[in-house]
């Protein structure tokens, strides 16, 4: 995939997908002129196989399969360095958000997307408790991602320092959160939201 | 420059009858040209006072055309008589000139330098087997032994580009190029040895300027070396001035000299002047592929340039 020849035509360039990315991120893809500044400053560049600028380049050519097949989008730390310094105000951090969402929606979890798993768990926590419970988050994440012993030594240390609480008071108003989640789901079903 | 080794080889290069035939044809042509009014004068050779010698002659009367001769004694380069140096000759109408191959090269050079115009000339080329060298016994026929040095490596025996060419040469033997050999000997020396060689030779110079007088290319109205304001070259025959004079002379002839070697022949002090000329001619051929006087070329090698000329000697 990575090195395969690109056949370009109006059919093979999925510009509809690009439009979706642009709508979700609120940022233009075409504005990018490939100066490479995003990749120059990206703290995560060394972990990615497509540097950030190439992600945009592939989007310009409508090559979303190539984008989503890679792991780059799952390594973005949302540090906003790229968006801050882009000479064309291409909000690459927002584009990355959009790509992660579209990827998950299209393909669900994958080996590369298990970061998103943590994020999903995080959101589940919010939905259930209204607030974040780090202990539970870590434990469940490690279980679901199959890294049972990760950070095993860190837990007790944090607990003795009072940094991880075993029990939390539930938010008194947690029903309100559930309503927000469900309203959004409803809007999506009706096609009123992206 | 005595060719002792060759002196023994006295086999005649061409039969006496060859010169007789050429002389006859020459006279006929000259008479015709003059009587038909094609030319106003014929510059050629006539018998010298001493036996076996010849000198320049200018014939204007067809009746006297039979004074003209051609032989191995016809050493002079008659092109000289067409230049400004001999003002009396030119400018009187179309002139015929007898030219050996080497003389013809000088004519070509003079045409390129706007000194003569081809249309003012009727060139009578003569096929030449060579001329006597200095000190040759004129009673003997021309042979490898008494041939002038320059003729040993002549490549223009049968002149090209003349209006008429008289004579057809028999096949001539290949001779060792003594001038080229001498050049090679000098080039193999150290600079100090060469300096010593030339210092000794130039030291003899008496500044008689015969070399200049006889050179077809020394047609300047006033020689740089005769000027006093400023004095570029010391005029008295002192070693310093002599050295300068010969260097300047060689430089001024570089790319122009056609190698007639008249300078060397005329030098009373036996300075091997043609060596300098040959050297420069060869260098310019190597550097810029130029050979003087083969055909009239508008611009010589030192008044023209190419952007990609060699500059390996420049820092």
């Amino acid at each position, binding site marked *: 995939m990575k090195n395969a020849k690109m056949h370009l035509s109006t059919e093979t360039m999925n510009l509809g997908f690009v439009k979706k990315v642009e709508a979700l991120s609120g940022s233009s893809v075409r504005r990018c002129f490939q100066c490479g500044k995003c990749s120059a400053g990206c703290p995560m560049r060394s972990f990615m196989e497509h540097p950030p600028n190439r992600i945009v380049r592939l989007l310009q050519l409508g090559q979303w399969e190539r984008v989503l097949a890679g792991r780059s989008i799952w390594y973005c730390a949302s540090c906003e360095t790229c968006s801050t310094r882009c000479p064309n105000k291409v909000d690459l951090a927002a584009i990355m958000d959009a790509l992660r969402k579209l990827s998950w929606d299209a393909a669900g979890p994958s080996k590369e997307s298990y970061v998103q798993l943590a994020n999903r768990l995080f959101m589940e926590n919010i939905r259930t408790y209204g607030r974040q419970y780090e202990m539970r988050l870590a434990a469940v994440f490690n279980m679901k991602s199959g890294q049972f012993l990760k950070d095993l030594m860190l837990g007790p240390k944090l607990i003795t320092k009072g940094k991880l609480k075993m029990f939390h008071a539930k938010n008194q108003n947690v029903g309100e959160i559930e309503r927000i989640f469900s309203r959004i789901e409803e809007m999506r079903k009706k096609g009123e939201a992206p | 420059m005595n060719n002792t080794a060759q002196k023994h080889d006295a086999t005649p290069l061409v039969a006496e009858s060859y010169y007789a035939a050429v002389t006859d044809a020459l006279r006929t042509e000259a008479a015709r040209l003059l009587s038909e009014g094609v030319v106003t004068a014929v510059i050629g050779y006539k018998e010298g006072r001493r036996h076996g010698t010849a000198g320049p002659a200018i014939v204007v009367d067809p009746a006297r055309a039979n004074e003209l001769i051609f032989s191995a004694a016809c050493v002079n380069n008659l092109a000289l008589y067409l230049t400004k140096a001999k003002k009396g000759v030119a400018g009187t109408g179309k002139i015929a000139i007898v030219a050996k191959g080497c003389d013809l090269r000088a004519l070509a050079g003079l045409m390129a330098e706007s000194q003569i115009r081809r249309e003012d000339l009727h060139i009578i080329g003569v096929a030449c087997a060579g001329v006597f060298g200095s000190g040759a016994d004129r009673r003997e026929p021309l042979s490898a032994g008494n041939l002038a040095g320059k003729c040993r490596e002549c490549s223009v025996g049968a002149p090209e580009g003349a209006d008429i060419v008289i004579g057809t040469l028999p096949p001539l033997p290949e001779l060792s190029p003594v001038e080229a050999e001498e050049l090679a000997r000098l080039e193999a020396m150290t600079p*100090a040895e060469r300096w010593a060689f030339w210092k000794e030779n130039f030291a003899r110079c*008496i500044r008689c300027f015969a070399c200049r007088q006889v050179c077809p290319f020394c047609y300047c109205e006033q020689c*740089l070396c005769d000027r006093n304001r400023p004095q570029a070259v010391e005029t008295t025959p002192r070693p310093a001035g002599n050295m*300068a004079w010969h260097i300047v002379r060689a430089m001024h002839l*570089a790319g122009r000299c056609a190698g007639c070697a008249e300078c060397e022949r005329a030098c009373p*002090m036996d300075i091997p002047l043609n060596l*300098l000329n040959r050297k420069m001619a060869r260098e310019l051929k190597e*550097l810029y592929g130029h050979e003087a006087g083969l055909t009239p070329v508008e611009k010589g090698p030192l008044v023209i*340039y190419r952007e990609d000329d060699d500059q390996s000697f420049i*820092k």
Partner: protein
Amino acid sequence: MKHDFEPKIVAFVCTWCTYAGADLAGTSRMQYPANVRVLKFPCTGRIDPVFILKAFQKGADGVLVSGCHPGDCHYMAGNFHARRRFAAFRKLLEFVGVDLARLEFSWVSAAEGGKWVEVVTDLTERIRTMGPLAEFKELETEEHWSGRLETAELKEAYNNI
């Protein structure tokens, strides 16, 4: 540092490139040996081989000719003509026995102050190790004609008087 022998070096330079390059070396306060005397010409095309000869005769131990790089000539082609002229002239000098190490040619542009310093320094150092140019100086001091009257023809002529 003092040396036993301080050569006299004459530089013939064009005004537009090398002279300006030497000026630049000055304004940049670069240092080089004080042996060189600079004569300014409009163009290397103006430099006559006779000048070089004259400089040697008048006691120069080394001569430098320097001008614009090919293509940079203020007069378009002067340096091209000079290049041919000097290519020929140095061959002639070599043939009469002048050591060409004493004659340097260079292209130094108005921006090459550093190159000027390098060229002058190298040449000065080189000539310093070579020692004085004795040949021309000896000629200058030889007052008398030293030719020999020994050729056969001259003897014969002399006897015939």
